């Protein structure tokens, strides 16, 4: 399987804190890879490195054959990587539909002059963006449809905001989705739904997915491969069963036997 995303010996420090240390990671096309690890393990920093929010101190990040180093975040998004946020970052005072439409920026072209003149090309593009947004929102069934299109994003419930973030990320026409704890703060029913959704994103949507998740049922259900991080170091990699039974992973989550019995 060709690697869509590949991290080679990537390191990142903040002052003396080494968040990511010589990390190697690859995500194949069409794969769902889960990143697990205790809080502070460097999972979100990994996402920030891939999306260009931070520049790595050393190492290389390669996406679809090209290095991403030195690119601005919006350029990386335009190449096909989109993400959601652990702490939701929606455009709260814009409508649900506008949130999704705004994310189509990188693959549309109409500038100010064409918008003012309302050229036929601009109007066609606008219709396409709107259709794209409606289609991406319909992915979530009725939940984000109908009257909700024109409601401000802040009026949505927490779970619907998470769904909207995913819809917004898909509207960038990305190939690779980085989902940062998509099931955080959801009830068991909603968590179940998210797990199903991630499966559909890959099977029906054709996305490659790198996901950070703490809920082990979700991780077990969706992952082709699991990568465990602790203190910025990859401590285990493999199928869910391999990683879940790896002594170093158990230690990272629960401590050593000696520490536990003390």
């Amino acid at each position: 399987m060709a690697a869509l995303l590949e991290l080679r010996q990537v390191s990142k420090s903040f002052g003396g804190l080494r968040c990511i240390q010589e990390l190697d990671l690859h995500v194949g096309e069409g794969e769902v890879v889960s990143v697990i690890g205790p809080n502070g393990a460097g999972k979100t920093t990994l996402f920030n490195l891939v999306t260009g929010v931070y520049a790595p101190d050393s190492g290389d990040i390669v996406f679809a054959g090209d290095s991403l180093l030195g690119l601005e975040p919006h350029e990386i998004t335009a190449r096909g990587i989109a993400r959601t946020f652990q702490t939701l970052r929606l455009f709260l005072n814009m409508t649900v539909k506008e949130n999704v439409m705004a994310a189509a920026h990188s693959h549309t072209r109409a500038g100010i002059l064409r918008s003012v003149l309302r050229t036929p090309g601009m109007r066609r593009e606008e219709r396409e963006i709107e259709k794209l947004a409606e289609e991406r929102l319909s992915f979530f069934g009725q939940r984000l449809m109908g009257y909700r299109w024109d409601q401000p994003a802040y009026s949505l419930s927490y779970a619907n905001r998470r769904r909207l973030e995913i819809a917004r990320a898909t509207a960038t026409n990305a190939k690779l989705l980085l989902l940062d704890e998509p099931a955080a703060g959801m009830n068991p029913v909603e968590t179940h739904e998210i797990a199903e959704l991630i499966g559909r994103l890959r099977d029906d949507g054709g996305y490659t997915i790198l996901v950070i998740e703490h809920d082990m049922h979700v991780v077990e259900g969706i992952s082709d491969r699991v990568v465990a991080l602790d203190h910025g170091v990859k401590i285990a990699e493999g199928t869910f069963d391999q990683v879940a039974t790896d002594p170093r992973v158990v230690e990272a989550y629960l401590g050593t036997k000696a520490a536990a019995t003390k």
Partner: protein
Amino acid sequence: MTEPTDPNTPRVGVDEWVASHEGRRSRRSGLLGVVERELGRVPPAAFYLGFGVIAALVPVLTSNGYTIRVGFDTLLYMLLALGLNITVGYAGLLDLGYIAFYGFGAYGYAMLASPKFGLHWDTLAVIPIVIVATAILGLLVALPSRRLLGDYLAIVTLFFGQLFVTVYQNGEAMSALGFTRKYDVTGGPNGIPNIDNFNTLGFHVGSLQAYYYVALGVFLVVLLAVYLVDRSRTGRAWKSLREDPLAAELMGIPVNRLKLVAFACGAGIAGLAGTMFAALNTAVFAADFDTPTLIIVYAMLILGGAGSIGGVILGAVVVNVSLEVLRTPSHATWVFYVLIAATLVAKMRPWRWLAAVVAGTAAFGFAAHAIVSAAWPRGVHGQAVVGGVLGSGLRHWVVLPANPLTIGNVAFVLLILAVLGVTLLHGWVQRLALIPTLYLAAFVWENRLAVEPSVTRLILVGVILIVLMNARPQGLLGTSRVEIV
């Protein structure tokens, strides 16, 4: 896959709340509800067109030069607020140097169409040059500050605004870093006089009416452009970077470039407004483009509701027309009493308390007037500023001493203390205390404030702004924004 018909398993995407939405919406009943629904159906463009028609009728209905002049100034302010709305309302960049672009545009027109340098270029050539030059200046200001946010951006742009005033006020002897001899570029404190009127292709814009229509036409064209951009890809990108710059960047929006574009667009519109200002006034002075003008434009934008085009129109009308109306003491007196009455009607519940307070204040006044006229006849010899029914009523109600200066000053201080005191009280004690406070307010108004309109109008406009912003923090036509949920 779970069986969708099994009621115990979750069904993906099924949402009863959405399905039952229509049944849950509460609607206002009766005539108000009908009006509200019908108004909601009218597209915003129709409102703007209606505004254009009404504004176009002003010079037809009145030949009063003063009124048309106020209308022209209001249109200029609207244009300025519209430009500021792009930078502040859409892109969320707090630009405190905005008024310098207005001045730059005005000086730009003055330099290219006046005896200053002997240039008398065609207006249709000058205006595009000025707009482009101002937009480039906006770009240059934004370039070093594009990574700054919020307060930091505000400080840098405020510095730029002050720099503009200082340079243009002292620009009568400028040299290039001391290498060349000194040239008079801006006319210094004397400004640039004798600026040409708009003049193009044989057409000559000379009368006030003509300028009014030019300003209205330009405003409507810019309004249409801004309206279209607001609903386009660029407009959505601006709003998303206002909401969350990091998320916008990560959704593929080149945030830094769009900030520059927003700055340049706002600046270009301000430059355009500047050319009209210079052409009508036929002289420009740097002091016209200082912080007070900036504050007025911001007051209009915020009062109307930042981010709303209709709000820009309404805000500019309310602020500028209030400022003008309050110049005349008798008009200001009407505004004063109507405001107090409106506030009481809006805030005082239940109705019987409203009636009691109004009746109590009236009775209190007549009693006070009777006592004072018996004990101290000179205390009712003054003149009310307003004539007519209101004036003759007030003469028998408010105590008007012949020489009100000292007693008026004392009463003013007492009024402030009384108002502060009333806010601390509760229940019926507060209502009771309101009666003498209202009377004191009327006394201070008649004896001290109404006779000095130049000071009073600013105080009153400030009070109007405070009251309106308390009632509607999002602005008159703005939508309330949620920052943290």
